[in-house]
Protein backbone atom coordinates (compact mmCIF):
# COMPACT_ATOMS: atom_id res chain seq x y z
CA UNK A 1 0.00 0.00 0.00
CA UNK A 2 1.42 3.46 -0.86
CA UNK A 3 2.60 5.51 2.09
CA UNK A 4 0.38 8.45 1.06
CA UNK A 5 -2.72 6.23 1.29
CA UNK A 6 -1.74 5.13 4.80
CA UNK A 7 -1.23 8.75 5.82
CA UNK A 8 -4.55 9.79 4.26
CA UNK A 9 -6.32 6.92 6.04
CA UNK A 10 -4.82 7.94 9.37
CA UNK A 11 -5.77 11.58 8.86
CA UNK A 12 -9.34 10.70 7.83
CA UNK A 13 -9.78 8.27 10.72
CA UNK A 14 -8.70 10.92 13.20
CA UNK A 15 -11.20 13.35 11.68
CA UNK A 16 -14.02 10.77 11.79
CA UNK A 17 -13.24 9.97 15.41
CA UNK A 18 -13.33 13.70 16.14
CA UNK A 19 -16.91 13.75 14.77
CA UNK A 20 -16.38 14.73 11.13
CA UNK A 21 -18.52 12.20 9.25
CA UNK A 22 -17.58 13.62 5.84
CA UNK A 23 -14.01 12.40 6.33
CA UNK A 24 -15.30 8.83 6.14
CA UNK A 25 -16.07 9.44 2.48
CA UNK A 26 -12.33 9.59 1.79
CA UNK A 27 -11.91 6.12 3.30
CA UNK A 28 -14.86 4.80 1.29
CA UNK A 29 -13.56 6.22 -1.99
CA UNK A 30 -10.06 4.83 -1.44
CA UNK A 31 -11.20 1.34 -0.42
CA UNK A 32 -14.48 0.76 -2.28
CA UNK A 33 -12.74 -0.94 -5.23
CA UNK A 34 -10.71 -3.44 -3.18
CA UNK A 35 -13.62 -4.18 -0.82
CA UNK A 36 -16.25 -4.71 -3.53
CA UNK A 37 -13.81 -6.90 -5.45
CA UNK A 38 -13.01 -8.88 -2.32
CA UNK A 39 -16.74 -9.34 -1.66
CA UNK A 40 -17.24 -10.45 -5.25
CA UNK A 41 -14.69 -13.26 -4.74
CA UNK A 42 -16.91 -14.59 -1.97
CA UNK A 43 -20.30 -14.41 -3.68
CA UNK A 44 -19.51 -14.05 -7.43
CA UNK A 45 -22.44 -11.67 -7.79
CA UNK A 46 -21.81 -7.97 -8.46
CA UNK A 47 -25.02 -6.72 -6.85
CA UNK A 48 -24.55 -8.74 -3.70
CA UNK A 49 -20.85 -7.81 -3.60
CA UNK A 50 -21.81 -4.14 -3.23
CA UNK A 51 -24.29 -5.00 -0.46
CA UNK A 52 -21.60 -7.01 1.34
CA UNK A 53 -19.08 -4.18 0.94
CA UNK A 54 -21.60 -1.58 2.17
CA UNK A 55 -22.19 -3.61 5.33
CA UNK A 56 -18.45 -3.94 5.79
CA UNK A 57 -18.03 -0.15 5.58
CA UNK A 58 -20.80 0.40 8.14
CA UNK A 59 -19.06 -2.09 10.43
CA UNK A 60 -15.75 -0.29 9.85
CA UNK A 61 -17.40 2.99 10.82
CA UNK A 62 -18.80 1.46 14.02
CA UNK A 63 -15.49 -0.14 14.97
CA UNK A 64 -13.11 2.61 13.88
CA UNK A 65 -12.23 3.47 17.48
CA UNK A 66 -10.97 -0.11 17.92
CA UNK A 67 -8.20 0.25 15.33
CA UNK A 68 -5.05 0.32 17.43
CA UNK A 69 -2.61 1.33 14.67
CA UNK A 70 -0.39 -1.65 15.53
CA UNK A 71 -1.46 -3.26 12.26
CA UNK A 72 -1.78 -1.40 8.96
CA UNK A 73 -5.26 0.02 8.45
CA UNK A 74 -5.62 -2.07 5.28
CA UNK A 75 -4.92 -5.30 7.21
CA UNK A 76 -7.45 -4.36 9.89
CA UNK A 77 -9.98 -3.33 7.24
CA UNK A 78 -9.66 -6.56 5.26
CA UNK A 79 -9.78 -8.71 8.41
CA UNK A 80 -13.02 -7.02 9.43
CA UNK A 81 -14.42 -7.23 5.89
CA UNK A 82 -13.59 -10.94 5.61
CA UNK A 83 -15.52 -11.53 8.86
CA UNK A 84 -18.53 -9.62 7.52
CA UNK A 85 -18.44 -11.50 4.19
CA UNK A 86 -18.06 -14.85 5.94
CA UNK A 87 -21.07 -14.15 8.09
CA UNK A 88 -23.10 -13.09 5.02
CA UNK A 89 -22.08 -16.28 3.24
CA UNK A 90 -23.13 -18.35 6.25
CA UNK A 91 -26.52 -16.61 6.39
CA UNK A 92 -26.99 -16.99 2.65
CA UNK A 93 -25.70 -20.55 2.50
CA UNK A 94 -28.86 -21.54 0.65
CA UNK A 95 -28.03 -19.12 -2.16
CA UNK A 96 -24.36 -20.12 -2.24
CA UNK A 97 -23.20 -21.65 -5.50
CA UNK A 98 -22.98 -25.40 -5.16
CA UNK A 99 -20.39 -27.56 -6.87
CA UNK A 100 -23.15 -29.10 -8.94
CA UNK A 101 -24.28 -25.67 -10.22
CA UNK A 102 -20.70 -24.88 -11.07
CA UNK A 103 -20.33 -28.07 -13.06
CA UNK A 104 -23.45 -27.15 -14.96
CA UNK A 105 -21.78 -23.96 -16.13
CA UNK A 106 -18.73 -25.88 -17.30
CA UNK A 107 -20.72 -28.43 -19.23
CA UNK A 108 -22.63 -25.78 -21.20
CA UNK A 109 -21.81 -26.60 -24.80
CA UNK A 110 -19.92 -23.89 -26.60
CA UNK A 111 -18.68 -24.06 -30.16
CA UNK A 112 -15.83 -21.66 -29.60
CA UNK A 113 -12.75 -22.90 -27.78
CA UNK A 114 -12.12 -19.41 -26.37
CA UNK A 115 -15.60 -19.42 -24.90
CA UNK A 116 -14.97 -22.87 -23.43
CA UNK A 117 -11.74 -21.65 -21.86
CA UNK A 118 -13.58 -18.64 -20.46
CA UNK A 119 -16.33 -20.86 -19.07
CA UNK A 120 -13.74 -23.14 -17.48
CA UNK A 121 -11.92 -20.21 -15.88
CA UNK A 122 -15.21 -18.80 -14.60
CA UNK A 123 -16.15 -22.23 -13.28
CA UNK A 124 -12.91 -22.58 -11.35
CA UNK A 125 -13.28 -19.10 -9.85
CA UNK A 126 -16.83 -19.94 -8.82
CA UNK A 127 -15.52 -23.15 -7.31
CA UNK A 128 -13.37 -21.15 -4.94
CA UNK A 129 -16.55 -19.95 -3.21
CA UNK A 130 -17.74 -23.55 -2.80
CA UNK A 131 -14.59 -24.60 -0.93
CA UNK A 132 -14.71 -25.00 2.85
CA UNK A 133 -14.41 -21.46 4.34
CA UNK A 134 -10.87 -21.82 5.70
CA UNK A 135 -9.45 -22.75 2.27
CA UNK A 136 -11.71 -20.30 0.45
CA UNK A 137 -10.64 -17.34 2.63
CA UNK A 138 -6.92 -18.09 2.25
CA UNK A 139 -7.18 -18.46 -1.53
CA UNK A 140 -9.24 -15.29 -1.94
CA UNK A 141 -6.82 -13.15 0.08
CA UNK A 142 -3.71 -14.63 -1.55
CA UNK A 143 -4.82 -14.74 -5.18
CA UNK A 144 -7.59 -12.23 -5.62
CA UNK A 145 -6.40 -9.58 -3.19
CA UNK A 146 -2.72 -10.14 -4.06
CA UNK A 147 -1.75 -10.40 -0.41
CA UNK A 148 1.41 -12.26 0.58
CA UNK A 149 1.28 -15.10 3.10
CA UNK A 150 2.16 -12.83 6.04
CA UNK A 151 -0.57 -10.30 5.19
CA UNK A 152 -3.16 -13.04 4.69
CA UNK A 153 -2.11 -14.56 8.03
CA UNK A 154 -2.63 -11.18 9.73
CA UNK A 155 -6.06 -10.80 8.16
CA UNK A 156 -7.18 -14.28 9.10
CA UNK A 157 -5.57 -14.20 12.55
CA UNK A 158 -3.66 -17.45 12.02
CA UNK A 159 0.10 -18.24 11.72
CA UNK A 160 1.75 -17.96 8.30
CA UNK A 161 2.38 -21.73 8.27
CA UNK A 162 -1.35 -22.36 8.59
CA UNK A 163 -2.05 -20.07 5.64
CA UNK A 164 0.54 -21.93 3.55
CA UNK A 165 -1.03 -25.27 4.47
CA UNK A 166 -4.52 -23.97 3.66
CA UNK A 167 -3.35 -22.57 0.33
CA UNK A 168 -1.76 -25.90 -0.51
CA UNK A 169 -4.85 -27.90 0.44
CA UNK A 170 -7.18 -25.41 -1.24
CA UNK A 171 -5.19 -25.62 -4.48
CA UNK A 172 -5.30 -29.43 -4.29
CA UNK A 173 -9.08 -29.39 -3.90
CA UNK A 174 -9.46 -26.92 -6.76
CA UNK A 175 -7.09 -28.85 -9.01
CA UNK A 176 -9.04 -32.08 -8.44
CA UNK A 177 -12.27 -30.29 -9.28
CA UNK A 178 -10.72 -28.62 -12.29
CA UNK A 179 -9.59 -31.99 -13.64
CA UNK A 180 -13.09 -33.35 -13.08
CA UNK A 181 -14.64 -30.36 -14.86
CA UNK A 182 -12.29 -30.64 -17.81
CA UNK A 183 -13.19 -34.31 -18.14
CA UNK A 184 -16.89 -33.71 -17.75
CA UNK A 185 -17.20 -30.84 -20.22
CA UNK A 186 -16.35 -32.69 -23.46
CA UNK A 187 -18.46 -35.74 -22.48
CA UNK A 188 -21.52 -33.55 -21.98
CA UNK A 189 -21.02 -31.82 -25.30
CA UNK A 190 -23.31 -33.38 -27.93
Amino acid sequence: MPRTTAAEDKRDIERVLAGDLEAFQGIVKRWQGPLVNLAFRFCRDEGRAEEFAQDAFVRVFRSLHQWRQEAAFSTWLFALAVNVFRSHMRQASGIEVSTEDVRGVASTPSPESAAIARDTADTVRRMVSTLPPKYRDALILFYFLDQDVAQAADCLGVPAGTVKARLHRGRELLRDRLIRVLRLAPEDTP
Partner: protein
Amino acid sequence: MNADQQLERILADDDRVEVSSGFAARVMLAVDLERSRESVRSVGIWQRGWPWATAAALALVSAMGAQALRELTVAIPGVGSELASWCSLIVPLSIVLAYLRIGGFSLR
Protein backbone atom coordinates in the same frame (compact mmCIF):
# COMPACT_ATOMS: atom_id res chain seq x y z
CA MET B 1 -0.08 -26.54 -19.63
CA ASN B 2 -0.81 -28.91 -16.75
CA ALA B 3 -3.73 -28.57 -14.32
CA ASP B 4 -1.59 -26.83 -11.66
CA GLN B 5 -0.31 -24.20 -14.07
CA GLN B 6 -3.74 -23.70 -15.54
CA LEU B 7 -5.20 -23.25 -12.08
CA GLU B 8 -2.55 -20.66 -11.12
CA ARG B 9 -3.23 -18.73 -14.32
CA ILE B 10 -6.99 -18.79 -13.87
CA LEU B 11 -6.76 -17.59 -10.28
CA ALA B 12 -4.24 -14.87 -11.12
CA ASP B 13 -6.17 -13.54 -14.14
CA ASP B 14 -9.52 -12.97 -12.49
CA ASP B 15 -11.39 -9.95 -13.84
CA ARG B 16 -11.94 -6.95 -11.66
CA VAL B 17 -15.45 -5.78 -10.83
CA GLU B 18 -16.38 -2.16 -11.50
CA VAL B 19 -17.96 -0.37 -8.57
CA SER B 20 -21.21 1.40 -9.50
CA SER B 21 -21.10 5.21 -9.53
CA GLY B 22 -23.51 5.75 -6.64
CA PHE B 23 -21.86 3.26 -4.32
CA ALA B 24 -19.91 5.73 -2.17
CA ALA B 25 -23.01 7.92 -1.75
CA ARG B 26 -25.07 4.87 -0.69
CA VAL B 27 -22.44 3.87 1.85
CA MET B 28 -22.35 7.39 3.29
CA LEU B 29 -26.14 7.33 3.59
CA ALA B 30 -25.99 3.99 5.42
CA VAL B 31 -23.22 5.29 7.69
CA ASP B 32 -25.21 8.45 8.43
CA LEU B 33 -28.25 6.32 9.26
CA GLU B 34 -26.12 4.14 11.50
CA ARG B 35 -24.80 7.19 13.33
CA SER B 36 -28.34 8.49 13.86
CA ARG B 37 -29.41 5.10 15.18
CA GLU B 38 -26.46 5.02 17.55
CA SER B 39 -27.22 8.47 18.94
CA VAL B 40 -30.91 7.57 19.36
CA ARG B 41 -29.86 4.37 21.15
CA SER B 42 -27.48 6.15 23.49
CA VAL B 43 -29.98 8.96 24.21
CA GLY B 44 -32.67 6.32 24.77
CA ILE B 45 -30.53 4.45 27.27
CA TRP B 46 -29.64 7.70 29.03
CA GLN B 47 -33.23 8.95 29.12
CA ARG B 48 -34.56 5.65 30.39
CA GLY B 49 -31.70 5.00 32.75
CA TRP B 50 -31.02 8.25 34.56
CA PRO B 51 -34.35 8.63 36.47
CA TRP B 52 -34.03 5.11 37.82
CA ALA B 53 -30.40 5.59 38.77
CA THR B 54 -31.26 8.87 40.50
CA ALA B 55 -34.23 7.29 42.27
CA ALA B 56 -32.05 4.43 43.51
CA ALA B 57 -29.38 6.82 44.74
CA LEU B 58 -32.01 8.98 46.44
CA ALA B 59 -33.56 5.93 48.10
CA LEU B 60 -30.17 4.86 49.41
CA VAL B 61 -29.32 8.31 50.77
CA SER B 62 -32.82 8.59 52.25
CA ALA B 63 -32.50 5.23 53.98
CA MET B 64 -29.22 6.31 55.52
CA GLY B 65 -30.72 9.67 56.46
CA ALA B 66 -33.77 7.95 57.96
CA GLN B 67 -31.60 5.85 60.24
CA ALA B 68 -29.68 8.93 61.39
CA LEU B 69 -32.92 10.87 61.94
CA ARG B 70 -34.40 8.04 63.94
CA GLU B 71 -31.37 7.89 66.23
CA LEU B 72 -31.56 11.65 66.68
CA THR B 73 -35.29 11.77 67.50
CA VAL B 74 -35.06 8.85 69.92
CA ALA B 75 -32.38 10.79 71.84
CA ILE B 76 -34.74 13.77 72.34
CA PRO B 77 -36.44 13.44 75.75
CA GLY B 78 -40.18 12.97 75.51
CA VAL B 79 -40.24 11.64 71.92
CA GLY B 80 -41.29 8.04 71.76
CA SER B 81 -39.41 5.59 69.59
CA GLU B 82 -42.58 4.94 67.55
CA LEU B 83 -42.97 8.60 66.68
CA ALA B 84 -39.26 8.79 65.89
CA SER B 85 -39.65 5.88 63.49
CA TRP B 86 -42.58 7.57 61.78
CA CYS B 87 -40.71 10.84 61.40
CA SER B 88 -37.64 9.16 60.05
CA LEU B 89 -39.77 7.23 57.58
CA ILE B 90 -41.96 10.10 56.42
CA VAL B 91 -39.18 12.54 55.59
CA PRO B 92 -37.19 10.32 53.16
CA LEU B 93 -40.39 8.86 51.75
CA SER B 94 -41.64 12.34 50.98
CA ILE B 95 -38.39 13.16 49.21
CA VAL B 96 -38.57 10.03 47.03
CA LEU B 97 -42.27 10.52 46.26
CA ALA B 98 -41.69 14.15 45.35
CA TYR B 99 -38.93 13.10 43.04
CA LEU B 100 -41.08 10.42 41.43
CA ARG B 101 -43.91 12.89 41.03
CA ILE B 102 -41.67 15.42 39.34
CA GLY B 103 -39.84 12.91 37.17
CA GLY B 104 -42.84 10.64 36.71
CA PHE B 105 -43.20 11.46 33.00
CA SER B 106 -39.88 9.78 32.21
CA LEU B 107 -40.46 6.75 34.42
CA ARG B 108 -43.22 5.27 32.30
